[in-house]
């Protein structure tokens, strides 16, 4: 404890010294850089500690776990061994080509299918909503409020709500005058999940795009109109490019969120159902049956898949989630350079 205090005192003294030296001039920045760095380290450490514990540790421990298997097995000399043993990449080879391969590829296919269909649908519907809301002068507040309702309902609850709507004698069938067993299996179940997911999230895309639309200056559109561009042309070559940055970030977030989908299909259809099982669900099912090794293997594969999609998305389309921060640094650097030039001159 005392050593820590001493160290802190020394740090304060060190930080104070250069500040004292340039005190009368009072030029901002520069001098107390070391103090700033120290303060930054102090302020950042709790976050880094928490993230290391609940994100960093699980990644490593999960990977290690995926190399082990639990339960009975035979060792090289044919003896039965119990407990956890090292199996190398067996869990992975089993996923890709062993007995559970069918289940894995099914879950992988479902995850990918849900991701692409829902993201495309909710982007189209969301952009449409944004255009409608942008048009309307009155009633915008009302619509904005109602748009937040699907977002605020917990996903598990909306799963239940849609399960209720998709009952055999529920509202959906009454409306369609059909007898579809939505929640049983097969394509109706997939469709039910897609409908429920799109309902919950497309308003959200709409909200973000609306915010993007409102930042476009009016005269840009006026100019395009004067130049004789049709409404469709104006949308494609003026509106869309200008809202693209906001839209890309929204789509990236949606993409990564659907890839790890669990609550909605688990509550709406149920776990361990071939038609809607996603990678998160299959990993959860393995874990709840205490097959930790293969659960960790599924989770690791999903983690890599998500990282890959995020990387590709950012590389190919250039979505920039910390764009604002980067701009700021650039601006600061430019200013500094300018100031230096001024001093030299």
């Amino acid at each position, binding site marked *: 404890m005392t050593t820590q205090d001493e160290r802190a005192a020394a740090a304060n003294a060190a930080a104070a010294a250069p500040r004292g030296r340039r005190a009368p001039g009072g030029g901002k920045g520069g001098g107390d850089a070391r103090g*700033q760095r120290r*303060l930054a380290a102090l*302020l*950042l450490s*709790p976050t880094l500690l*928490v*993230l290391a514990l*609940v994100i960093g*540790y*699980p*990644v490593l421990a*999960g990977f290690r*776990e995926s190399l082990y298997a639990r339960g009975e097995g035979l060792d090289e000399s044919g003896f039965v061994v119990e407990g956890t043993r090292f199996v190398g990449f067996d869990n992975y080879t089993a996923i890709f080509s062993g007995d559970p391969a069918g289940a894995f590829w099914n879950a992988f296919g479902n995850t990918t299918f849900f991701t692409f269909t829902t993201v495309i649908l909710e982007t189209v519907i969301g952009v449409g909503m944004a255009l*409608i809301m942008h*048009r309307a002068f009155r*009633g*915008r*507040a*009302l619509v*904005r*409020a109602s*748009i*937040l*309702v*699907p977002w*605020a*309902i*917990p*996903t*598990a*609850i*909306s799963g*239940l*709500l849609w*399960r*209720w*709507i998709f*009952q055999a004698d*529920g509202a959906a069938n009454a409306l369609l005058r059909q007898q579809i067993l939505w929640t049983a299996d097969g394509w109706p179940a997939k469709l039910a999940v897609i409908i429920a997911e799109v*309902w919950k*999230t497309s*308003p*959200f895309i709409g*909200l973000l795009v609306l*915010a993007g639309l409102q930042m476009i200056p009016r005269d840009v559109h006026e100019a395009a109109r004067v130049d004789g561009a049709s409404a469709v042309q104006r949308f494609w070559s003026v509106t869309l490019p200008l809202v693209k940055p906001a839209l890309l*970030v929204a789509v990236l*977030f949606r993409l990564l*969120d659907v890839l790890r989908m*669990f*609550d909605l299909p688990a509550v709406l259809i149920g776990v361990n159902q071939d038609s809607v099982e996603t990678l*998160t669900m299959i*990993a*959860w099912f393995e*874990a709840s049956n205490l097959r930790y090794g293969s659960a*960790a293997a599924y989770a*690791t594969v999903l983690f890599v898949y*998500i990282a890959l999609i995020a990387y590709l998305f950012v590389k190919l389309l250039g979505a920039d989630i*910390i764009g*604002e921060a980067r701009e*700021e640094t650039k601006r600061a650097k430019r200013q500094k350079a300018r100031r230096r030039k001024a001093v030299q001159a």
Partner: protein
Amino acid sequence: MTASRTRTRTRRILSYAGIAAVALYCLAPFYWMTVSAFRRPQDQFDNSIVPVRWSLENFTAVFQGDNGFGRALLNSVVVAGTTTALTLIIGVSTAYALARLRFRFKNALLGLIVATSMFPGISQLVPLLKLFTDIGWINTYQAMIVPSLGFALPLSIWLLTAFFRQLPFELEQAAMVDGCTRGQAFRKIIVPLAAPGVFTTAILTFIAAWNEFLIALSMVNEKDMQTATVAISKFTGVSGFDQPFGTQMAAGVIVTVPLIVVVLVFQRRIVAGLTAGGVK
């Protein structure tokens, strides 16, 4: 003249129709949940748009029997509330450092923190489940709160950093010139100015934590420790096979309506926060 007037009129009618369509799309399922909650249990499968007879039976049923719903609500409040409080305490200091102080790798660090929010929750689960089993944390509040921090922190830090950047830096410097220490300047100048941003972040964090399902489902196997979302999904009917939809819809209304009220009251702020962060 008249032609253009009819055109503006049709355009206005079309935009109202569009608005109505959007509102209907968003609200109809929620309306159905509310209406179903107010039906009598024997009218449950009635598909009329307004209940034949309104009744509160489903709502009383929620709190009766072995559902343990009151306790589940309390658990949700404790878990979501503590997650929010801890996230704000840790997040504000980090966001302050990221927005105000100068040090190397700042953007890389912000990028790294934001990137952790894209991490799939299931990857956390197995290692933390084993760890918490070993240290006896299963069926405790902290087993739900600590993993949730991993998701709440990155997004709130991102939001708060954006908010802090918008604050005028000069005020804080002026205070320091007037003899405040950096800590005092932070407490007396920055904290009050940042309050709206912090408040917005708090709402968004609380809603996200309140809606959490996967962790709460896995870290707890005792009924007394379940959060509301998990408890509702596990409600059992009288017969044990039928899903008690009326009761579940009533419970759904109970956990959703407070959020919706908050959302309506603080609409502007929430939209500002959502669009600043692109939060799911």
